[in-house]
């Protein structure tokens, strides 16, 4: 596979790179180092810019009004979009728009009218409710939230944790157990309106990612009708699993973008900073750190583009997505760590973006499936699923 960008891809990359450097980074200089949002007037102005660039709603499928950019190109652009302080979790502060939840594209027509189209118009925000206090890595077994049949609908009882954006959302996708005897074949996906009686956002969950928070949810006799089922009864696990696999590719791209930005800072600093009468760049200890950074970045980039290319071709890419997510999140963490080491004391301060990237990159080894689960996925491919 040839991963050199085509001239058209390079043009888009250059366009986004200029946008990040000329529009986003200067604004960040005035924001709190942990900020995750722009002032509303800046947000509105920049959204108009990305619309003029023809790149707004980049992840929205063409048939729903997206700009029809293939997944490989989207990965190349996602790598660029992440190259600023808030870029790992809020690339370009969301000014390129988003598709919301990918699963909603699979909704029936009635659900699309009520949820998908308002989401694409920016009128509704969703959340994704999968992880529970009993665990997130193995949702098929860990889901204890139960939905019981009642009055042409279902009554949900249980809790979810580490749910982003639920306190600001108008609706969410919630996974609940509808058949306790069937394991992964007993889970159903529900669309729950945030104003449904019995739905509560109980608390903020503070994490290393101090720029933004997750929430804990409670469902207490929360009744939803049959019309709120996304897909089919007892087939919700496939919905969750598909999302987890697909999400790993852009997740990896974000890690690579931040790693590149940290690496570039380290190179620049090493060329400038002298200790004991010698530039850091002339010291082998520093050179080797920079070499290791380069290798980590190139490795992650290669595997991520490979996964994207397989997805673009319509080939199975579950294993490739796991390898991409694993190499990018682990390699990205190492790159940021070395960049901090090269910067010395300044690398630890909030004056530079490195400390935010360090904290946020640590989460990446756990989010969207921890490294150990990615290794399990890869091992199944090597050994065959009967040997897992």
């Amino acid at each position: 596979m040839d991963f050199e960008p085509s001239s058209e891809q390079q043009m888009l990359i250059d366009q986004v790179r200029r946008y990040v450097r000329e529009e986003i980074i200067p604004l960040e200089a005035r924001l709190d180092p942990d900020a995750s949002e722009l002032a509303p007037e800046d947000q509105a102005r920049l959204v108009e810019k990305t619309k003029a660039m023809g790149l707004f709603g980049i992840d929205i499928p063409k048939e729903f009004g997206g700009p029809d950019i293939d997944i490989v190109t989207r990965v190349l652009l996602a790598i660029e979009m992440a190259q600023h302080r808030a870029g790992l979790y809020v690339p370009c502060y969301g000014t390129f728009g988003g598709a919301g939840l990918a699963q909603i594209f699979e909704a029936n027509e009635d659900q699309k009218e009520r949820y998908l189209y308002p989401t694409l118009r920016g009128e509704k925000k969703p959340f994704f409710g999968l992880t529970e206090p009993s665990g997130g890595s193995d949702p098929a077994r860990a889901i204890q939230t139960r939905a019981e049949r009642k009055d042409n609908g279902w009554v949900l009882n249980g809790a979810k944790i580490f749910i982003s954006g639920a306190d600001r959302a108008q609706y969410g996708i919630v996974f609940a157990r509808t058949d306790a005897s069937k394991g992964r074949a007993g889970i159903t996906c529900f669309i729950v309106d945030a104003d449904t009686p019995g739905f509560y956002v109980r608390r903020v969950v503070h994490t290393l990612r101090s720029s933004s928070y997750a929430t804990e949810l409670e469902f207490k006799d929360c009744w939803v009708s049959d019309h709120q089922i996304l897909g089919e009864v007892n087939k919700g696990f496939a919905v969750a699993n598909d999302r987890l696999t697909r999400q790993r590719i852009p997740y990896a791209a974000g890690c690579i973008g931040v790693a590149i930005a940290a690496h570039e800072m380290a190179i620049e600093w090493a060329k400038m900073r002298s200790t004991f009468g010698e530039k850091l760049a002339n010291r082998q200890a520093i050179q080797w750190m920079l070499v290791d950074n380069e290798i980590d970045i190139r490795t992650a980039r290669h595997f991520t583009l490979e996964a994207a290319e397989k997805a673009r071709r319509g080939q199975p890419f579950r294993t490739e997505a796991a390898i991409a997510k694993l190499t990018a999140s682990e390699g990205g963490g190492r790159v940021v760590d070395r960049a901090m080491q090269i910067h010395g004391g300044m690398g630890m301060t909030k004056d530079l973006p490195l400390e935010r990237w360090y904290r946020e990159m640590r989460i990446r080894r756990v989010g969207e499936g921890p490294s150990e689960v990615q290794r399990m996925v890869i091992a199944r491919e090597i050994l065959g699923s009967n040997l897992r």
Partner: protein
Amino acid sequence: MAIRLRLDKPWRQLTADEAARLPGQLGVYQIADAQGVVLYIGQAGARSPFGLRSELQRELKERGSGYQFRVEVNMQYRTRWFELLMVHKADHGSLPPGNANNPPPALGRLSPA
């Protein structure tokens, strides 16, 4: 471990001496009137030259005497600030008057148990 959503430390008088004794760390704070009614919830972020001390000294300068305050040193000053605002809104139905005029964009809603 009990999770403490609310800031429930005793109030301290907002005076030059009290403000000067504050740490130069990041965190959140509340300003109240003499009766303990919360008027404002603020944060001392990484752009504050001396963290909580700078912010409370600024508050004193702008407001004058007759107010109370309490602080919480917290590296997660932003998410804690959002949390305190949401909890206040859940408890009282509205934001403190000092925040209501300039609320953060897209403040969420909580239903603390």
